[in-house]
């Protein structure tokens, strides 16, 4: 697929933005400012940016636990600092600080958020796809899932139902080689995980997830298929996470040299080479992008750091839509 120069520059900026976003939160997670655990997707930028690039604001998106990149790119630019503030657990967070890294949703752009139970969104996403059919709109649903998550029974129930009913649902299986420490080759019997989808008569394919153009192309064709009423698609994107499972995991389970090999295939590096070599872009344009990103990210960070904590009393809000639960006196 041939992207225009502007498109390629835009998406390059997107990828740099989410890379830097992650690097910043990694730093503040490691120094203890960000509470809890965060799952970084450094190295997987193309798989997130490419998919989101194809989608409209009204398409339903279910990011996974490693989905900061998709979440940031799906959001409106003015909301991105709120996403970072959420990860910091601040009152200004896009969900008031109650969700944190793993539970960021943003209904106005139909980022439906993640559920900490792997495989859960794989069935929830049936419902938004179903609603598009019920309401006769052409909004598609995309659910991100990992190679490990494919172990859950919900994946089967979802695929079986989506395929039977031809729902406009796209399964983006980000195969980053591992589920925590376990290589996908040791927990699944298929050579490529996309083989699994073929057992449901669902178009299923494996694509280089670090090749931004390939990701955009395969996503677009799945979206088109969904809109034609032909049902779900399973897209396996081959990629690699550079960090451990969570920020702080030393990832001792990786064979020596593996990370280095994958760093060669860095999606941002590959895109940059293309920009310089095939799109006639100047180094200075690249530098400009990086400078813009730096300013942008810094503004998110300053905002996040300066923001106040939530009020503890907010903890009892929204348990029910109509019943107040008891707080503390």
């Amino acid at each position, binding site marked *: 697929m041939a992207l225009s120069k502007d498109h390629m520059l835009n998406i390059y900026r997107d990828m740099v933005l989410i890379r830097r976003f992650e690097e910043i939160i990694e730093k503040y997670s490691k120094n203890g400012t960000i509470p809890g655990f965060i799952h970084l997707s450094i190295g997987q930028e193309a798989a997130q940016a490419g998919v989101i690039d194809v989608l409209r604001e009204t398409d339903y998106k279910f990011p996974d636990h490693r989905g900061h990149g998709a979440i940031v790119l799906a959001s409106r630019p003015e909301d991105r600092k709120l996403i970072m503030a959420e990860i910091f657990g601040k009152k200004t967070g896009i969900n008031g600080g109650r969700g944190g890294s793993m539970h960021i949703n943003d209904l106005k752009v139909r980022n439906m958020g993640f559920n900490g139970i792997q495989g859960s969104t794989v069935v929830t996403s049936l419902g938004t796809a179903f609603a598009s059919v019920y309401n006769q709109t052409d909004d598609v649903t995309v659910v991100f899932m990992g190679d490990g998550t494919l172990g859950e029974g919900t994946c089967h129930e979802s695929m079986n139902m989506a395929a039977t009913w031809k729902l406009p649902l796209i399964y983006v299986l980000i195969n980053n080689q591992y589920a925590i420490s376990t290589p996908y080759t040791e927990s699944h019997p298929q050579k490529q995980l996309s083989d699994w989808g073929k057992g449901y008569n669902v178009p299923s394919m494996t694509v280089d997830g670090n090749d931004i153009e390939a990701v955009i192309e395969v996503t677009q064709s799945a979206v088109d298929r969904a809109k034609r009423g032909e049902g779900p698609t399973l897209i396996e994107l081959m990629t690699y996470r550079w960090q451990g499972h969570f920020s702080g995991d030393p990832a001792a389970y990786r064979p020596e040299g593996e990370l280095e090999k994958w760093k060669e295939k860095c999606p941002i590096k590959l895109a940059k080479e293309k920009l310089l070599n095939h799109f006639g872009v100047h180094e200075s344009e690249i530098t400009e992008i990086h400078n813009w990103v730096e300013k942008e990210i810094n503004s998110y960070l300053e905002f996040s750091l300066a923001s106040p904590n939530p009020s503890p009393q907010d903890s009892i809000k929204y348990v029910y*839509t109509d019943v107040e639960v008891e707080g503390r006196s």
Partner: protein
Amino acid sequence: MTRKISFSKAINEALHQEMERDEKVFIIGEDVAKMGGDFGITAGIWSKWPKRAFDTALSESAIIGLSCGAALCGLRPVAELMFADFIAVCYDQIVNNAAKLSYMYEGKASAQIVVRAVTGGGIRCAYHHSQCIEPWLMNIPGLVVLAPSTPYEAKGLLISAIRNNNPVIFLEHKGLYNKKGEVPEDLYELPLYKANIVREGSDITIVAAMSMVDFAQKAAEELSGQGIQCEIINPLTLFPLDKETIINSVAKTGRLVIIQEGPKFMGYAAEIGSMVYEEIFEYLKAPMKRITSLDTPVPFAPVMEDYVMPQYEDVLKACNQLMSF
């Protein structure tokens, strides 16, 4: 006088009327559409609204997951799980997804779903088709658990449940399906979170739900003949519970008996007892009594199943003991 219809017919009617009124309502589940449900409760819906009634595969997690997702888009799914025991296979979707969506979305969206499920014993179906699953759900903030005992309550509560924006588990006790009672033909709502004082009395408060209400009424009649006046409270909404009505009653009577199908240990009778012990200790005249099933799985042979179920004589005995305490 209104006509009398059965508990199952009342539910069926509520579904028809709400489907008619609000096109965002649809039904989904195993065999709910063309066949009209394993228990016949959804009869006639598919033929009227073929695009709003969905037969699924045996995929309870997908049924609830889909319902949650559709609810987030503004639809109002009514899912049937057949036997409530099957909640176990989609427990995660209920407790970790449906129950938490309002909280996760800060009230901007919620799992406005109704999950209908058939609870309780008595039909000789053994371990996996006879359980009282109420306690599985009642420690999960965000869920609503409804437990009607009459056709009138069933219709009104189901209508309220469909219109309510929380995830509601609507329990239908198998022993009640054929029970008849007066039911208005029109649509009407019954308030959620509000217990019903089935009978007033000054000596003992009996709390009972679903099929245990008849049990309580029979006992109250019999005890009344002996000069013991029981007040019967039917919670209707088991969770969140109408504490006030129960507390007020026990504050008046000073004596509490709870009749509850299902294992005693950690059944909801435990919560009711503790609530009272914690909040109105000074009004209590005697120990609480819990009349419950035994702490076993539900066996098949009728003599065995009957033995593990709550015993009528134990209600009488308990009330007499409390009066002479």
